[in-house]
């Protein structure tokens, strides 16, 4: 019986020693634990404030880009409408050019008028589809020169200067353009 009692006493003593050791360890580490908790709380607070600031910034950026986009879209729509109108006016002016050519040359075959008009339309489309820059400028100049050549032919025909009844300048322009294409 005394053996069991001694064994129990030793066990209880061991238990107490262990508890004391744990308690001492906790007391020693109390400051560290407090500091750690404080640092954790501070870090959490800093993170929350940083996230809040970031969210505000993002929301602001979103609102600004929405406003900007609405304005830009409206501008692009107006620009596109204007471009379409310009294109239509170009087509109408080319139609008028063809009519004036037919008026100037009484016996001009429709095929020649069609070829001249078709070439002008091709130049117009090339100009429209070219990227902004020197290429577009070049095609635009070509179109203007071609239209000037056609006008010159019409004027010459009206003044009865043309010899064989065909718009020579315009046809020469088309030939030169075709040769240039072949060389390329």
């Amino acid at each position: 019986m005394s053996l069991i009692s001694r064994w129990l006493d030793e066990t209880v003593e061991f238990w107490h020693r262990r508890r004391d050791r744990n308690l001492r360890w906790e007391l020693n580490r109390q400051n560290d634990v407090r500091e750690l908790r404080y640092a954790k709380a501070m870090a959490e607070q800093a993170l929350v404030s940083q996230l809040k600031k970031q969210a505000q910034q993002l929301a602001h950026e979103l609102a600004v880009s929405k406003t900007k986009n609405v304005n830009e879209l409206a501008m692009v729509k107006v620009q596109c409408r204007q471009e379409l109108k310009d294109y239509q006016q170009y087509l109408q002016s080319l139609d008028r050019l063809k009519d004036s050519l037919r008026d100037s040359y009484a016996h001009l075959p429709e095929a020649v008028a069609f070829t001249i008009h078709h070439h002008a339309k091709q130049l117009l489309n090339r100009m429209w589809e070219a990227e902004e820059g020197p290429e577009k400028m070049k095609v635009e100049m070509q179109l203007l020169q071609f239209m000037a050549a056609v006008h010159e032919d019409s004027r010459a025909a009206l003044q009865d200067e043309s010899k064989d009844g065909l718009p020579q300048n315009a046809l020469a322009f088309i030939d030169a353009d075709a040769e240039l294409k072949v060389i390329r």
Partner: protein
Amino acid sequence: MFARIFQILLLLCALAMLLFLAGFVFAQTGMVFLAVLLFPLASKILLVSLSALGLLAVLAVLWACWSEMRRYFGRDARGLRHVWSLYHKQRAFSRRQLSEWRQIHYKNHFKRQRLLVANNRKHLQTLFDEIDKELSAKKHQLPRAHYKALHKALRRSHQRGDAQSLLSVRGEIVCR
């Protein structure tokens, strides 16, 4: 806390096993009355400790759920989710903006093409009418089969909207 309770319950299980072992030893050595005393005690201890372990497991699961929920609805997690949602909204908005721009340009291109096609059709019709007139004027000069072939080629070219082909048909008419 959970760990401490878990340890105690494991100790109780071990105790129950030891009691079973002791009961077995007593039964083997002829002390049956002790074995009869120890077996029910050991089984009850084992039952109680295993039940408590099960309960502890349920509590641990509930505790884990609760702590996860606290973490999920915590201020930092909510802030982070808010930032992410704004970031995704911004990205979605840029994509939508790009698609709206593309749509506007596509519509513009389509309308321009429609204008061009209408204009081409008008001038092709004029050209067709003129060539048709020229062909009709030469109807009696051409062999009947050739006239028919030319007329057919002319109509086909017109239907196809092929200006080059119309002009080549005209070339054939003029050359005759």
